């Protein structure tokens, strides 16, 4: 089967071809999943979010403007969907914590921050995932797009609808916050 240029697939999808859209899904599903996974922090939510992203894209593909980049448009949907999800989850978390406090529950548990015996890369990745999850939404979106998805500042700026300079500053800020949070782990190599 011939490789169909993405513009043709997009045009066919705009005309209602589900086959063309399915091909676009196959092209982008891994990257979209990677993005929403980094934003959500777990596979269960990432799965739901990735499905939602593609459903939203299908519903609104008629509004996609030809000439612009499909993946930028798709990533924008993914970022917005993720941010909406994070806000909702944050509200639910606040509500749950409030209820737990009212009930006198001991909320003092939580993850250990001890770095003892955890120098392996997998351990570091786990901690980084947790730390990324703690970043504010827009910093997290910038960090995930650039570091995890490999987008340039210019590409991330198009997705996020801001300037390259803004992305640059957000990346710097995100790194500083992550460094502070991960100091016990990142500090291992410090002299």
């Amino acid at each position, binding site marked *: 089967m011939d490789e169909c240029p993405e513009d043709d697939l997009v045009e066919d999808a705009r005309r209602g071809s589900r086959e063309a859209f399915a091909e676009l899904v196959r092209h982008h599903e891994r990257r979209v*999943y990677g993005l929403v996974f*980094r934003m959500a922090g777990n596979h269960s939510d990432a799965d739901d979010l990735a*499905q939602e992203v593609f459903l939203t894209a299908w519903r609104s593909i008629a509004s996609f403007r030809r000439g612009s980049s499909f993946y930028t448009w798709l990533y924008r949907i993914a970022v917005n969907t993720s941010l909406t999800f994070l806000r909702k989850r944050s509200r639910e978390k606040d509500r749950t914590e409030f209820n737990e406090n009212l009930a006198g529950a001991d909320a003092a548990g939580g993850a250990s921050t001890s770095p003892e015996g955890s120098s392996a*890369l997998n351990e570091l*990745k786990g901690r980084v995932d947790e730390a990324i999850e703690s970043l504010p939404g827009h910093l997290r979106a910038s960090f995930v797009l650039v570091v*995890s998805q490999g987008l*340039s500042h210019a590409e991330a700026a198009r997705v996020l609808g801001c300037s390259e300079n803004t992305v640059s500053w957000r990346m*710097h800020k995100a790194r500083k916050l992550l460094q502070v949070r991960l100091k016990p782990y990142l500090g291992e190599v*410090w002299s």
Partner: protein
Amino acid sequence: MRCETMKKWLSDGFDGALAPAKKARLEAHLRGCLDCRADRAGLARLQSGAAPAADRSPEYWTGFEERLGSKLAGIELGRRTVCVPFSARRRWVWAAAGFLAIAAAGTYFAVSRAAGTVETSWIPYEDSLAPLLQEAEANPEFGSLVNREILASIEELTPVMEKDLAGPPADDPLFWEGLSEDELRYIASELERETGRGGPK
């Protein structure tokens, strides 16, 4: 202050967004700054820890596409419904049904009239009276009979008509109580005009 700027440049450098001139200045700074070198090492570890998430199994993606496909099919069904709004469709259905009903009725009357089978439930008075009056003119006896019948019919109707036209009874106190001042003045003026006598002032 200078280190803070260099740390910002470090961040840009990790993203491949640092201009060559700045890159050279950064490297020169790093050679002489222990703190910024440690920062660079920490950022490098952060970068490696933030690598893309491990890919999922091929089975997962097959299932993902199948689930998405079934959802998209549902949306497409919805789309078709939405493409032709229900109200608009209903208008067309009613319009078509109305047109068919009119066409059917028209065809029925056209065929019936052509076949002479149309039965009218009304009496064609003009057609039935014309020969009657012609005969009454020709035959005086029959004419007087018709005349009597007509007068009797008029008499039958007259009391009812008079009763209807008589108006409300003047001796009914409720009638007078229900009248307004203007109406009373009007009646008084009419009585005065008809009888030449003044009514109540």
